[in-house]
């Protein structure tokens, strides 16, 4: 293999794939990045067997070939190279990669590309096409609600379903549920359903480029994998097996009180409460009082802790229905308010012991259910 690339492209590519490198592993080749010539471009790939990431960068190819380069060493080296051209030359016999740039000359010991796990080649024809910025928004609105408890694997994933041109993402950790629906610009012929690790979607959101680019998703049949592909980046992830809870049945259909508040003011009040609710329980109380002719409705958010003290903040609100006193994990409130994305948000509640439903005003595609807390007797 003999290729020339631009330092900046190489550094960018390594930055993207490095997140899939498995640094501590008993399989040394997984700590390496696969470097291979691929139809006029240079392909960089890394995998930890759960997630695989590939990035293609422009290159001048003199001799085709491939090898795997220790990720850490390679990235550290490339970071120190000057702007401009980097020439790489592999001595196949010894698997030594000779890297030359400006006045620097280095040799890196590599591992034969044969040892690298084969990466699947997606069939993009019957994939689903997303707009990158839409997809990133959807991911942001659901992933945080996924569980990190490996004991219940399905909950560490996001359920993604595609039917006609409607795509739904849902995540739940046992105490809250986030559901985002969106329409696809190009309808899909095929219905799909898969539980994708939240971690993989987080990575995808990070590397998927921006703006008007598109991402194609495909589920190669029978492989238990999902592949996301943009022009120059590809992410492969193992799917989570199992059945996702029937979340539709958890979403409350009625409410007794509907509280509409400014998202920003509510978020600020929650952040303040969180400071005092931090140790132990994260419990914050919401005292929701409808207004009358004389004064507007209000939500009082309060929290207290033995050690730190207590806090109260009042947010003005438009309230329909009965007054209610309800407690929530304030971190859950904060996390959802962080992603609602509309100026106003509605909180629908039925009773102190019943779930609360949060909907951004003017955006029917998103909803979030939070289970209440209470103080034991």
């Amino acid at each position, binding site marked *: 293999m003999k290729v020339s690339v631009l330092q900046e492209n190489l550094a960018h590519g390594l930055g993207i794939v490095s997140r899939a490198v498995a640094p501590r592993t008993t399989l040394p080749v*997984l700590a390496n990045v696969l470097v291979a010539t691929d139809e006029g471009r240079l392909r960089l790939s890394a995998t930890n067997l759960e997630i695989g990431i590939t990035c293609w960068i422009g290159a001048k190819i003199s001799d085709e070939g491939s090898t795997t380069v220790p990720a850490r060493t390679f990235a550290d080296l490339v970071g120190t190279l000057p702007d401009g051209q980097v020439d790489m030359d592999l001595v196949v016999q010894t698997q030594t990669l000779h890297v030359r740039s400006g006045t620097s000359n280095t040799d890196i010991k590599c591992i034969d590309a044969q040892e690298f796990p084969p990466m699947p080649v997606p069939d993009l024809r019957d994939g689903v096409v997303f707009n990158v910025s839409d997809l990133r928004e959807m991911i942001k609105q659901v992933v945080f609600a996924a569980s990190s408890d490996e004991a219940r694997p399905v909950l560490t994933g996001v359920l993604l379903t595609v039917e006609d041109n409607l795509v739904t993402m849902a995540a739940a950790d046992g105490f809250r549920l986030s559901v985002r629906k969106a329409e696809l610009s190009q309808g899909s012929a095929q219905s799909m359903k898969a539980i994708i690790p939240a971690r993989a979607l987080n990575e995808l959101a990070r590397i998927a480029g921006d703006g008007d680019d598109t991402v194609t998703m495909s589920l190669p049949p029978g492989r238990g994998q999902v592949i996301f592909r943009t022009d120059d980046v590809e992410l492969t992830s193992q799917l989570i097996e199992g059945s996702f809870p029937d979340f539709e049945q*958890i979403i409350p259909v009625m409410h007794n009180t509907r509280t509409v508040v400014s998202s920003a003011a509510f978020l600020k009040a929650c952040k303040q409460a969180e400071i005092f609710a931090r140790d*132990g329980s994260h419990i914050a109380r919401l005292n929701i009082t409808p207004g009358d002719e004389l004064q507007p409705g209000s939500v009082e958010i309060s929290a207290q802790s033995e050690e730190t003290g207590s806090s109260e903040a009042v947010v003005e609100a438009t309230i329909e229905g009965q007054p209610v006193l309800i407690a929530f994990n304030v971190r859950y409130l904060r996390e959802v308010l962080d992603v609602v994305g509309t100026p106003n948000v509605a909180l629908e509640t039925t009773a102190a012991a019943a779930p609360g439903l949060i909907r951004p005003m003017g955006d029917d595609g998103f909803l979030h259910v939070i289970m209440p807390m209470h103080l*034991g007797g």
Partner: protein
Amino acid sequence: MPIQILPDEVASQIAAGEVVERPASVVKELVENALDACADHITITVEGAGQKLIEVADNGQGIPANQLSIALARHATSKLTSAEDLFNIRTLGFRGEALASIASVSRFSITSRIREEEAGARLLVEGGQMEGGPVPVGAPAGTVVRVEDLFYNVPARRKFLKTDTTERSQIDDFVTRYALAYPQVRFLLVQEGRTALQTTGSGNRREVLASLFNADIARQMLEVNAVYEDFRVFGFISPVGLTRANRRGITLFINGRWVQDISLSTALIQGYHSMLMVGRYPLAALFIELPPNKVDVNVHPTKTEVRFTDRDELFKGVQSAVRRALLAHSPVPAMGGQLRWTPTPPQTFSRRDGWQPPEMAPDTQIEAASVMPEYKHQPVLPAGNVPLLRLIGQVGTAYLVAEGPDGLYLIDQHAAHERILFEKFMAEHKQSVASQTLLDPVTLELEPGASRLLEENLPLMGRLGFEIEVFGPNAFKVRSVPVLLSGVDPGAAVRVVIEDFEEDEAPLQDQIEAKIIARVCKRAAVKAGQVLSQEEQRTLLSDLETCQSPRTCPHGRPTMIHLSIDLLERQFGRTGAR
């Protein structure tokens, strides 16, 4: 005082004491009689935890009216005729004293009809005194024994009874075990008006197994079946991953008789050789059949102890039957996702070629906080908090290394986290525990004994932040969990608590709460083998610094080992012993 022959009444009460210790022993004797009478339908009704009423009705052979009074006499049995028979016993009863004993300590009635006769007969006995002779009554074929006001005339016995809960669960346990041993018999157990156990008599043991443990466990249990020259071992054992903290999940039957035999249960446990963690025991229901002349059941009046002529043979047989069953179902490690190919397993540190602690002189002070033999509610712990610690890192994914003003500290991450959770929980518990409602309530199915324990402790569970509802016989819905445990599988957390109830029969309230909290925290704490981020390691240390008793875990094990500068210097030969 001159020597006197005891009056009959006193003598029979003394004898009764050996056979009838508690309500469950009455149930045992009566059920065994029904089984000896070849009944295939046995209904047991219990009220007032057995102190008010125990009734056992069967559809067996029955007793002819003219023999009813004899059946009640001491040493009257239809099951033995000569002394030789004693060494060839095929029935559960043979001593001929159960009915007499029970009748001497209760208000007793027996109604029985043999199939060939039209009418049956009833006999009433109060405190051992027959109230007239048998009177003819209409009755279905079979026998009904009613035992009311047990121990009404021996108040001292009543004092030794455990809580109603315990007495009831002993009855549950006993009946469930017999139902398992006799799957072709239909058992119905009604306690306090509630069906505690019902079997179909279909002959399917696994079906009954679900009531002894629960459906989930029953499904996982492995089948044992080994035939030897002289005996046979069959039944069910738990796979390696399914264990308990005590031996109570082990049930042994010899020739259809439930026995408690330490050497056989030891053989069973040894069959798991090295596959079990220390302090964990398997679940099992094992049945051993051997010629009646190879086992002596006449060891103790309760007939639950036995002696074997070829003990070693049997011991080896059980052990290898268990071993073979385990190997046949050798566990496939559970894996997340679908890996197309398997990486080699991670290497673990081997103690042998790893770092060796230097030989310590006896006077050197590795200052492990003194080990508490047992957890006490207000443990007296070595005084003193830990000093401010500077994190160095994690070793062997199990320990943190930190530096303090006086040397090096090795911290057990699991024990330390247990301590932190425990103190947080106890602190919160003093006010009121914050509890988080689940999105989707978790349904729990429990065995009857455990289910009763849980049901009676629901208020306590509520105080600990578990909101649990009864959801049908032996089923529960967990609606909310204490916030501190929101990271743990709710079902698993509740199970851990129940194991604790089982351990302690009647613990003091405040003790059991602390103990349960300790248990639950153990479950929730980070495990050895878990990689912690720098941030997590640092938080763990600073949380530990704020603990009141940072040096031991709630179960009394040390959380840290201190290697003082002084010790280090001596070990490296930098200074002589001071």
